[in-house]
């Protein structure tokens, strides 16, 4: 449908709906429920240079309108992703896919990105400098503009593929990090990753998560995500992908009005497995009600309202 089309770093998308990394696996479980080729694309499970088991359980805690996770980047490693998973993915997904990459050093990121960047099905590399669930990795890059720039610059040198940097919201000034990534050569910014959160089991008098804290996501974080998308849209010129608590077609439109050219849907996939398809199917009727002809027309459309 023409009116849902959008573009992400030069690559056209049939629609702006992208399942977020860590909530969609490699798409196989969802492909059993619906044809996932209806998606704009999807961002597959965060990949690291080496295979990782992740953190001990419990890794999950429930919250009002969301959940905490402390999975800790469980994945089979970049070699297995390229050797085993991508060949299989071709059989059920026929569009460019987004590879989400994490690391513990600049070299980790660059190494994994170089390898993944060579794979033809990979359309975008999404660099996760925001994982709160691993020691000494991920999030520490995302809270320091200099460290973030180093990672981006190193990855930039090893691939021509569009480079999207996924930011953590656990910072005082998100625009500082975003600008630093743009200056270092990023082609896009996606945000937000999870807020650092915690729950305690009052009966056992200990944290619910074995790792004490975890990443908080779900509809509860939507207002924080929307605010940061708005701020980053004003701070950088590269495209912004909105992530955080999206659960309906209306939420997608709010994110796009704030400045997102596409959106990623995370937690909601876990509790309503067909949510992405439902949102794509539901968008035209919501657009009609709101007087929106084409989604591309409204990207950033709520900025500058004071002057109207």
């Amino acid at each position, binding site marked *: 449908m023409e009116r849902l089309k959008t573009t992400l770093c030069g690559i056209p998308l049939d629609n702006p709906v992208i399942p977020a990394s860590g909530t969609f696996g490699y798409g196989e479980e969802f492909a059993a429920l619906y044809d996932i080729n209806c998606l704009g694309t999807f961002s597959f*499970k965060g990949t690291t240079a080496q295979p990782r088991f992740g953190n001990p*359980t419990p*890794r*999950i805690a*429930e919250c009002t*309108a969301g959940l905490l996770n402390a999975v800790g980047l469980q994945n089979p490693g970049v070699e297995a992703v390229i050797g085993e998973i991508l060949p299989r993915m071709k059989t059920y997904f026929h569009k460019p896919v987004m590879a989400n990459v994490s690391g513990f050093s600049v070299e980790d990121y660059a190494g994994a990105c170089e390898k993944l960047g060579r794979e033809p099905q990979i359309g975008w590399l999404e660099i996760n400098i925001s994982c709160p669930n691993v020691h000494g990795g991920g999030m520490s890059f995302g809270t320091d503009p200099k460290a973030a720039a180093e990672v981006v610059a190193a990855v930039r040198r090893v691939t021509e593929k569009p480079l999207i940097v996924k930011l953590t919201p656990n910072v005082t000034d998100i625009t500082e990090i975003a600008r630093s990534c743009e200056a270092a050569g990023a082609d896009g910014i996606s945000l937000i990753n999870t807020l650092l959160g915690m729950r305690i089991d009052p009966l056992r008098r200990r944290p619910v998560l074995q790792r004490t804290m975890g990443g908080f996501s779900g509809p509860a974080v939507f207002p924080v995500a929307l605010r940061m998308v708005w701020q980053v849209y004003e701070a950088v010129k590269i495209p912004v992908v909105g992530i955080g608590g999206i659960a309906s077609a209306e939420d997608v439109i709010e994110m796009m009005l704030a400045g997102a050219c596409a959106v990623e849907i995370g937690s909601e996939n876990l509790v309503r497995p067909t949510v992405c398809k439902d949102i794509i199917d539901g968008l035209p009727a919501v657009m009609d009600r709101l007087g929106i002809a084409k989604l591309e027309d409204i990207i950033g459309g709520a900025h500058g309202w004071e002057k109207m």
Partner: protein
Amino acid sequence: MKQQQLEILSNEPLAAGIWRMVLLGDTSDSAPGRFAELRLPGEFYLRRPISVCDAREDRLTLVYKTVGRGTRRMTELVPGQEIEALTGLGNGFDLSRARDGAVLAGGGVGCAPLFLLARRLREAGCPVTAVLGFNRADEIFYEEEFRALGVRVEIATLDGSRGTKGFVTDAMPGIAGSLYVCGPQPMMKAVWRRARAAGQYSLEERMGCGFGVCMGCSIQTAGGSRRVCADGPVFAGEELLWND
């Protein structure tokens, strides 16, 4: 996996802290050891995984323990209400292993999934012994239902208020045939230590999605990492790392 609306037919207490909910819907994918994920009304974001206790034609029976806010909310649901569910989740027990006979060891609410297993085994003509352990006599449920299937039932209670005083292991006969186990971690560990034989253990773990994508319930096994929800919840005893 199937996403469906189930209608509540009944929802009532079965024993101390144990409730039974009977639902109307498609049970074609509800095999022994599998579970359903229920979406509760109200403020609950995650679904609740509840294992299948029985499934006959269009009736799905779930037995659950009231442990937190979610399961307390479940007790307030009334017949006629609809509830959205993912059904047919998990691998379930492998019944083909039971030839000469089966021993089913259950602890507390973990006895529930053993019921459908026992029924299917009995329907296949397999002799079945069920060793059911509880804290106290008032927590016992389904003892008569198991017996009605032609199952030999041994009861153990921690406080000795019924049957053998002590753990399930204290009431276990010499293992004859295949072993199927479901209960709290320490109970399953005790059974494993006692049995050290091939056996199928149904694990419990906090889950995010219940269908294999969030990696929330991953465990390390002898064969590498496994998702309790999608690769399990049933694992062979020798696959599991018992930390002992």
